[in-house]
C-alpha cells in the first residue's frame, strides 16, 4: 500500500490547497462590494447536458475602438504594465512588434453605470442607424466599463473604492495599420480572470424559475458581488427583480 501513498498525498495536497485558497479568499471583510444586474452577469449555459451548476459570466464593455482604448490604456499606463513600446506606430516593423507582444496580466478597474458608460451611450446614439437611437445598446449591454489598470491591485482599489469592480485581466496590444485608419497602437482586455462566477448552491433555486427575457430587455435579477482577499470575486446574494 506504500506505493499509493505519494499519489494519494498529491491528490489531497491539491484539494486542500484549493480549499484553503477558496476559504481564505472569502474570509474576513471583502475588499469591495458592488451590486450588478443580469446585464453585467448573464447566466452562462454549458449546453443541454451540462448539469454542473449555474454560473454567471462577467461581461464588460470591450472598448476595442482604438482611439477610445487609448483614452484609458494610455501609453504611460501601458508602459507601467510592462509593455515595451519602443517602436513608433508609424515604423515599418510596428505591425510585427505589436502583434508579437505577449499579453500581460494586470488589475483593471471596471466602472459601473457612471461617466464612462454615459460617454459610450452618447457615442452609440450618434452612430446608431435609424430607429431608437441608443435604446438597443442601453438596455442590453453591460455597464461595466474599464477605466483604469495597474499591476498593484491594492492601489487600484484605493483609487476606486466604490462603484467599481476591480478584477484581474489579460491585456493585449493591438495595431491598426494605415490602410485601416491607422497607424495606431493600442491595448485592450483579452479576457477577465476569472471571467465566470459560480452561483452558490443555496442561492441557485432563486434562479430556477426566472421569467422569460422580454423585449426591450430588462434585467431579471441583481447580484451582490464581493471581492475577496485574493482578488477573486464571489457572489454573496441574488435577488429576482421581476
Amino acid at each position, binding site marked *: 500500500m*506504500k*506505493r499509493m501513498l505519494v*499519489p494519494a498525498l498529491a491528490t489531497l495536497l*491539491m*484539494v486542500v*490547497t484549493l*480549499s484553503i485558497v477558496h476559504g481564505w479568499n472569502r474570509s474576513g471583510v471583502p475588499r469591495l462590494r458592488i451590486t450588478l444586474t443580469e446585464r453585467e452577469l448573464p447566466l452562462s449555459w454549458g449546453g443541454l447536458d451540462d448539469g454542473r451548476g449555474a454560473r454567471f459570466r462577467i461581461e464588460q464593455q470591450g472598448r476595442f475602438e482604438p482611439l477610445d482604448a487609448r483614452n484609458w490604456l494610455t501609453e504611460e499606463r501601458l508602459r507601467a504594465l510592462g509593455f515595451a513600446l519602443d517602436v513608433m506606430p508609424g515604423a515599418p516593423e510596428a505591425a510585427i512588434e505589436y502583434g508579437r507582444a505577449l499579453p500581460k496580466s494586470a488589475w483593471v478597474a471596471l466602472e459601473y453605470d457612471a461617466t464612462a458608460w454615459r460617454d459610450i451611450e452618447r457615442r452609440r446614439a450618434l452612430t446608431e442607424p435609424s430607429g431608437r437611437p441608443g435604446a438597443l445598446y442601453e438596455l442590453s449591454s453591460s455597464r461595466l466599463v474599464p477605466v483604469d489598470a495597474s499591476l498593484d491591485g491594492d492601489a487600484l482599489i484605493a483609487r476606486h473604492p466604490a462603484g467599481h469592480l476591480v478584477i484581474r485581466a489579460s491585456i493585449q496590444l493591438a495595431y491598426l495599420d494605415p490602410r485601416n485608419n491607422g497607424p495606431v497602437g493600442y491595448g485592450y482586455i483579452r479576457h477577465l480572470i*476569472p471571467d465566470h462566477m459560480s452561483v452558490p448552491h443555496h442561492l441557485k433555486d432563486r434562479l430556477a424559475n426566472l421569467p422569460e427575457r422580454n423585449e426591450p430587455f430588462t434585467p431579471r435579477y441583481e447580484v451582490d458581488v464581493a471581492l475577496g482577499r485574493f482578488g477573486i*470575486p464571489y457572489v454573496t446574494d441574488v435577488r429576482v427583480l421581476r
Partner: protein
Amino acid sequence: MSIGRRLPNGLKTPDTPSADDAQRRVDQIRAFRAELGALKAAGASPLQPEQEAAVAAYHDRLLAHLAAQYDVDATERAGQLSRGMRLLSFFGAVTLTAAIYSLVAHYFGRLDVPMQAALLTAFPLMALIGVELAARRERTLYIASLFAIAAYGSFWLALWELTQRLDIPLSALFLWTGVLFGFALAIPYGFRIILAASLFTLAAAIAATMFEAAGTEWPLVFNRLELLLIAACSLLLLIMPLARADRAFAPVVRLTSFGIGLACLLALSLDGSHSLAPVQPWTAESVYQSLMLVVCVALLVISVRRRWSESWKLTAVMLTLFLLTRYVEWFWDALPTYVFFLILAVFAFVWLLALGRIRGRLAMVGQ
C-alpha cells in the same frame, strides 16, 4: 541472464530484468527452436540427440521459470492476444475516465461545494486503490494500468472542476501537483504511458511557471515555443535517475523529450510567429528550418549508433514531415502538379533506400 525476484515494493534495481527482457529471452528461445527444427529437416543440425535433449530440457525449465515470474507470451498467438489486451486496457481506461467526466457534468450541479470536492477527491483515490489491488493480483498489470490511467485522468478532472467550481484561476503552480501525482504513480508500478504523460506535464509546468513569473498567461507556452523546447531538452537529465528505477523508462524519457522538442522545432520552422525571439518571423523560420535539419540528422546518427530504435523511428517520421512541408511550401506554386508529385515519388524511393541502409546498419551493429 540471471533472473532476480521483484523487490516487495515493486521497485527494481538496475540488475533486475524487466518483463521486456524476459519476453526477449522467450522470443530468442522460440526463434532458436524454429531454426533448429529447420536445420534438422534439412539434415544440417550440428547437435547430437543427447545434446539436443539437454538444451531442450534447459529451455523448458527456463521458459517455465520466466512464465511463472513474468507471465511472458510463450507463443505467437499469446503475443497477439497480449497486444489486444493492451489496446483493450487503454480503451477501457479512456472510456472509464470519460464516464467519470460525464457523471460530473450531469449531476454535480445538484450537490453543494463540499460534497463536490469530496467526490472529486474520491475518484482518483478509489482508482489508486484499484491500481494497488489489481497490481497485487496480476503480473501483467493490464487491469492495474486501466485503473492507473483512470486515476491520472480523474486527478486532472478534479483539478479542473474544482478550479471552475471555486472560481480559482488555474495557476501554473497547480500543474506541479499533477507532475507529482503522475511520477508517484508511474515509477513504483512501471507505467510507461503515465510516465510519458508526466514528463510532458513536467516540461509544460517548467515553461508555464516561467511564463507566469514573467507576468503573462501560462497557456501561451503552447503558442511561443522556445521555453517548452528548452524544458523538453532538460527532461534528458532524468534518463539516468529514472533508468535506475526501471531500465524500461529510459526509452520513454528519450521518446517524450525528443518528441516534444522535434514537434516544437517543426512548428517553429513552419511559422516564425511562434518564436519569442525579437526577430522577423521569416528570419526565425529560416533559423529553425536549418536547426531542424541539423538536429534531425544528428539524432538519426546518434540513435542508430546507440541502438535507440524508438528515437530513430520518431526522428525519421519528424524529418519526413519537415521535408514534406518544405517541399510543399517551396515548390507547390513553382512546379506543374505532375512534376510536383513525380519528384515526391522519387523522394519517397530515395528515403526508403536510406532507411533500408539504416536498418541494415542497425542489424550489423546488433551482430
